[in-house]
């Protein structure tokens, strides 16, 4: 049997939750004090996911970098691989919010998109 300890992010209580697992199946969730905690713990243990935000270098723009995000969540253990792909990209101005910077980042089915507008200059 495997035990995982986590802090609930549902509210400022920050309940310390213990999840017991066996062969990838959840046996018990303990320590939470409401239903939000139970749901959070189950998701977090079986499919932890995060949105990644960073910046991408822009050529010919009114700013040197454009902020970007993964348009949805990606698996938590792929965050650093995602950062590597983001760091390897260079784009040409202009850029509009929502423009796709990377398609299907780390084979997650999720695109990396721009989160601000950059005008072309010069």
């Amino acid at each position, binding site marked *: 049997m495997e035990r995982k300890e986590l802090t609930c992010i549902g509210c400022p209580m920050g309940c310390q939750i213990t999840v017991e697992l066996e062969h990838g199946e959840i046996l018990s969730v303990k320590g939470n004090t409401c239903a939000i905690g139970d749901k959070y713990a189950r998701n977090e243990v079986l499919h932890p996911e995060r949105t*990644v935000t*960073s*910046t991408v270098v822009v050529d010919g723009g009114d700013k040197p970098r454009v*902020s970007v995000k993964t348009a949805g969540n990606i698996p938590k253990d792929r965050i*650093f691989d995602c*950062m590597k792909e983001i760091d390897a990209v260079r784009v040409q101005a202009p850029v509009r919010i929502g423009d796709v910077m990377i398609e299907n980042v780390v084979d997650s089915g999720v695109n990396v998109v721009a*989160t*601000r507008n950059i005008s072309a200059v010069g």
Partner: protein
Amino acid sequence: MISYDIVIIGGGPAGLAAAVSAREAGVDKILILERDKELGGILNQCIHNGFGLHTFKEELTGPEYAWRFIEKVLEAKIEYRLDTMVMDISEDRVVTAMSKNDGMYQIKAGAVILAMGCRERPRGALNIPGYRPAGIFSAGTAQRLVNIEGYMPGREVVILGSGDIGLIMARRMTLEGAKVKVVAELLPYSGGLKRNIVQCLDDFGIPLKLSHTVVDIEGREHVSAVTIAAVDENRKPIPGTEERYTCDTLLLSCGLIPENELSKKAGVEMSRITSGPVVNESLETNVPGIFACGNVLHVHDLVDYVSEEAQRAGANAAKFVLAGGTEAPKGHVVELKAESGARYTVPSTIDIDRMDDLLTVRFRVGDVYKDSYVSVYFDDERVMHNKKRILAPGEMEQIILQKKKLAEIKDLKTITIKIEAE
């Protein structure tokens, strides 16, 4: 002298929302003065997501949230001037501004909305001993360098203070390849959101040391090491608990202070608790026609609440201007008080005759309270008693007052918010 109906000082989330709502309320000549080279304020460097859940029912990044409001300002053709620093506001609402292109000039304002935001508490205000080398940044400065300019302040980082910006920067610098060695927090709890502690520190194995502070900074030219130590209940370092971390960067995330130099010059009365103006139910200061909203009024944790508050300030400033710049006659004024655990309220007074049907009163608590009650007293009578599983200084609280309930009590003098154990 040029004149505008409403001059808004600051083009961040508060100024933008105030401008849009003043225009919607029917005011034509509105001017936003912004000292940066673009609108949007600090949101532009907050590239992480989590903004806008209340306002737009979706999670946006800072720049996206800002753009939603910038777009409205552009569509409404509201005038704004960038790279413009406001130098002075007089009691009769003459705004003195300065820019590279236009030099120094004055604007006569029908109403002024203060929306200057806040500033980070600097090292000088923290009494940290040690050398004063390069490599010490406020977390927000580091955020601007990394996210806007594209520079890394350093590679090995210690962070003092666990405010949200510090937590966000711990993750941001880790993602960019830095090693964040520790986050030290003077208080026995973090002022940051639980979500940020989990997703910015725990996710990357960054230790958070509560009840710890920096006791020494080494390095003559550049930071070379930082020593932290545990503190006792009086926040004094405990000898023998020192731990030394070699590093090239120290980030400070030790609180935000409303930026009110201009307000003070205009004769605006300030609250010693919030460091922001004292305002009435219309978010108007003691100087008629000068309104305040956003982080210059009191530091918020959610931008959604800033926008909502600023919309009210904009609508009230519009009402003032459209009434010819005169005050509506004073009605039945009630004082708001914060006691036993509650630290302050915004607003500080309510004119029952002038208030809207519903009024949101925001406040903060001074400590962590579990299973306690937020109680509201009309004079000596308790009229609200809401159980809260947790109250924390980092989370702004609110109550909603109904005009008709207040009007029922003839001689009501004081409304008091208290935190009670039962």
